[in-house]
């Protein structure tokens, strides 16, 4: 079988689980989860250095060169703030990738679709490899792809909620309609959630809280990774189709079955 890699910009990922790095109990647990998952891409944020006291980032213990680093613009409330964070991230010299995140609502942290599209246009023009985190809206994803996004990253549910896929119809429609890879981001709570979207044909998933908040994050990272691989394999194998229009009782062969005895019919 041909190599099955997720192509994003200049990289090809064998593991289709993109790993978050926030809210882990410790840098050691984060490192263990990354290793257990086999992930090749991790997402990180741009933040002010603590001027006093411990300046060390929890990433300091990691060999970032072992991964494709996907910086995000978490914390941005406008397109301009997202663009500024993206430029700062690229100036680290670690990555030309950017995951656009622009909060549109403080309560739910759901993304601002308009600012996300504006930031996508600007950052594509500046030569970034742009992967916008966005609402689970088909038309928006088409517009993001048209604007030059390398992949679209619709949220399954609000960030950190672990609610799973709230709108399966929309996520499936995006997977089917988007001309660029669909990576389901945010809200996936269990490996089953991840497997399900991969079975539908998602190109990958991004998981953070579902792993970081598990009782044993490293074991959960491995479970998510296995689920993503299983879902992908199932998608490639071609799922047996549901046949609701044909009723539910006609799935076994009927021809050639000996007829009931005439004497028994009465």
């Amino acid at each position, binding site marked *: 079988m041909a190599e099955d890699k997720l192509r994003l910009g200049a990289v090809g990922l064998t593991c289709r689980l993109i790993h*978050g790095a926030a809210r882990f109990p410790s840098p050691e647990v984060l490192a263990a989860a990354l290793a257990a998952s086999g992930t090749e891409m991790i997402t990180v944020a741009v933040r002010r250095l603590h001027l006093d006291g411990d300046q060390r980032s929890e990433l300091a213990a990691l060999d970032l060169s072992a991964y494709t680093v996907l910086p995000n613009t*978490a914390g941005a409330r406008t397109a301009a703030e997202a663009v500024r964070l993206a430029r700062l991230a690229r100036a680290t010299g*670690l990555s030309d990738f950017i995951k656009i*995140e622009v909060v549109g609502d403080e309560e739910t942290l759901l993304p601002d679709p308009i600012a996300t599209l504006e930031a996508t246009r600007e950052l594509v023009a500046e030569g970034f490899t742009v992967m916008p985190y966005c609402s689970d809206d088909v038309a928006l994803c088409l517009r993001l792809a048209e604007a030059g996004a390398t992949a679209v990253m619709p949220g399954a549910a609000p960030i950190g909620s672990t609610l799973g896929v709230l709108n399966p119809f929309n996520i499936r429609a995006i997977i089917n309609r988007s001309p660029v890879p669909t990576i389901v981001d945010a809200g996936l709570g269990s490996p089953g959630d991840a497997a399900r979207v991969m079975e539908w044909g998602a190109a990958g998933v991004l998981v953070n809280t579902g792993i970081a908040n598990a009782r044993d994050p490293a074991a959960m990272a491995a479970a998510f990774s296995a689920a993503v691989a299983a879902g992908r394999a199932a998608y490639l194998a071609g799922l047996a189709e549901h046949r609701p229009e044909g009723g539910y009782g006609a799935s076994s062969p009927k021809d050639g079955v000996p007829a009931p005895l005439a004497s028994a019919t009465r």
Partner: protein
Amino acid sequence: MAVVRALSQAGNPQEVARGLRAEFEAESSWLTLRVNGQQRKCPPGTSVRGYLDGIGVVQDGIVIERNGEILKNADWAGIELAIGDELEVVHLVGGGTTYG
């Protein structure tokens, strides 16, 4: 208190007072900056690199934005900080999602 103690314990209080005054005047000539949103001071003529060394920034992966413009690392040593400069000193941290 420290000044009173220094003067009272000194063999030559006048000389010590002059020294303290010179130190104070030097300090008052320091530039006021905003660094990561906080008010900070540094002596005139301090370069960006000198300032970072002064506050103990040693790690790699730091990006400096000065008055909204990202500075190339190679330029840090040659750029002198000016009064009212706004510096952002940032780095990458763990983060997959936006948390309030």
